[in-house]
């Protein structure tokens, strides 16, 4: 019963957060420029403007307009981009696959590097590799992601000329209609390498430290001592008994970080001129393309809320010892 109550509470909270985000989005619309001027220009006489305002409902009370905005938003209508002259949601759907490619690329690098390195640092904390990794991780935290990106471009594109410095390239493969990926051709992959490394650089130190400290904690537990006492092979103790139990907290933190990654995609995409959501958003800001700005805020807010809710739910389901937030303790 408690789990159902928790579920309902969590979902209601998610809806509430989305309402707040949409309210913020809507109030931006009211304050950023005059939608009428964007549509008809300056030359239309005042009387005609007023009539148009009335017809478009721009003179209605705030709440009524907000309600209409919500109704449209739920039906997938977030207005028409001033710059692209197309529905804002279509523009976002166009840019979305590029950002997903980047996030997947960075996630692969993070998993492949931080898991072995984090485990090694926990198993052999005094070895030279662990010391180097720990030292490098504090340096890594101190370098802003856009500087890593610039450095990579300077070394690998400008000086060595090995990898392209901007864009996604031409050889993209369309896996389903409207969804392209760069993972299936060398041309696409070569464009993905530098941006993915840059994006992963900010999360690597965090994950290496997290996996290390979780694993160290687990290695102190009684059941690990017992496994040693049974005379199991070290590899079996480390990877079967210890590592499995460090995964849960790592996945929870990781799930939240995937949402955080979207913020850093803005920086990475700007440096690499990657045609994804983040670059689109910064361009929309420069052009004061209000509908697109609002659509971005709402979509990204939705992604945050969904990932956090799902991660929370999975965590409570998988780990029954956790106290349900909001349930009587």
């Amino acid at each position, binding site marked *: 019963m408690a789990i159902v109550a928790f579920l309902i509470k969590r979902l209601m909270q998610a809806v509430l957060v989305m309402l707040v985000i949409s309210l913020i989005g809507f109030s931006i619309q009211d304050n*950023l420029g005059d939608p009428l001027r964007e549509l008809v220009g300056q030359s239309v006489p005042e009387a005609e403007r007023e009539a148009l305002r009335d017809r478009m409902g721009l003179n209605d009370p705030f709440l009524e307009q907000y309600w209409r905005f919500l109704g449209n938003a739920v039906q997938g209508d977030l207005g028409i981009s001033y710059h692209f002259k197309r529905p804002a949601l279509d523009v976002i759907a166009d840019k979305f696959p590029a950002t997903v490619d980047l996030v997947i690329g960075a996630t692969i690098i993070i998993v492949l590097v931080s898991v072995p390195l984090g485990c090694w640092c926990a198993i052999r904390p005094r070895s030279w590799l662990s010391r180097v990794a720990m030292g490098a991780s504090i340096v890594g935290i101190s370098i802003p*992601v*856009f*500087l890593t990106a610039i450095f990579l471009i300077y070394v690998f594109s*400008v000086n060595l000329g090995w990898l392209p410095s901007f864009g996604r390239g031409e050889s993209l493969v369309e896996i389903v209609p409207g969804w392209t990926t760069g993972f299936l051709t060398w041309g696409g992959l070569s464009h993905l390498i530098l941006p993915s490394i840059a994006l992963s650089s900010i999360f690597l130190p965090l994950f290496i*430290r997290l996996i290390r400290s979780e694993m160290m904690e687990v290695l102190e537990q009684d059941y690990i001592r017992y496994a040693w006492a049974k005379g199991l092979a070290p590899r079996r103790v480390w990877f079967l008994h210890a590592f499995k139990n460090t995964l849960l907290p790592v996945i929870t933190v990781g799930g939240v970080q995937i949402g955080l990654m979207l913020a850093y995609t803005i920086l990475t995409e*700007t440096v690499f001129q990657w045609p994804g959501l983040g670059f689109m958003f910064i361009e929309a800001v420069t052009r004061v393309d209000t509908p697109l700005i609002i659509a971005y805020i709402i979509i990204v807010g939705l992604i945050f809320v969904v990932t*956090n809710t799902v991660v929370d739910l999975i965590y409570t389901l998988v780990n029954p010892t956790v106290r349900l937030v909001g349930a009587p303790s």
Partner: protein
Amino acid sequence: MNWIATRMTAFLGSDVLYRFRRDPVAMAAFAVMAAFVLAAMLAPWLSSMNPHDPAQIDIMNSEIPPVWQAGGEGAFPLGTDIQGRDMLSAILYGLRISIIIGVFAVMVQMTLGVVIGLVSGYMGGKVDAFFMRLADIQLAMSTLMLAIVALAVFKAAFGADLYEDLAIVMLILVIGFAEWPQYARTIRASVLAEKKKEYVDAARVIGLSAPVIMARHILPNTLSPLLVISTVQVANAIINEAALSFLGLGMPVTMPSLGSLISAGFEYILSGAWWITTFPSIALISLILAINLLGDWLRDVLNPRLFKG
């Protein structure tokens, strides 16, 4: 303010200072940080020109390489940028702006976070639940994302010109408001631990009011975690400011911080003018690294329970 004095003598007599003297990394980090802060404060006297004053900039001096490269001039030891500004002066003034924003933003965070954390931890109940859920939600959204969106909206609403004048205040407020949960959570956790102790009961029994107990009795005992997160938070605030300026949402090129200097130089890195981006980047990274190393060391010293490293 008697407790500050007693606190200071306690600090000087504690083993913090002793361990500091024996840790070369901490001492080096502190020296680098102090040097940067000093250079930032003395910027007007150390630099050969005022990079904010258009009258002192000569466009004929643009893109001069550093002094040790062919074509370098002794008057511009680190070269000049695209507008003919001396890079060394621009970096010193930029450092100043970055540090000012970092420190003031953290003061905003601290004020908000300490008040909310104290009230939340001391009152408990509905107030506590409300603020902590708010903190959860805000942290889940990511500071950088909130700051980018907020500044983007302000920039679009104010127009680019007005925004340039207000940029420094907006950056302080936005970075300040975005990160209060870090403080609120830390303070709340210490308050919950302190609240159970007898001295709080004693204070309540002699009839002191809740605000007095919170500010005069509990707060002084939460100072060490406050100190630890403050160092890391200053580093974060400076990084975030640099990122926002890099995106064109922060300080304008006419009054550049380290981030806007890097951003301005990025366009010219492909044409060979590497020094415009490189020197501000080195300054930014060394400053943040020094603060982070110091923060790490402080955490180890003040929280012996935690793992080392």
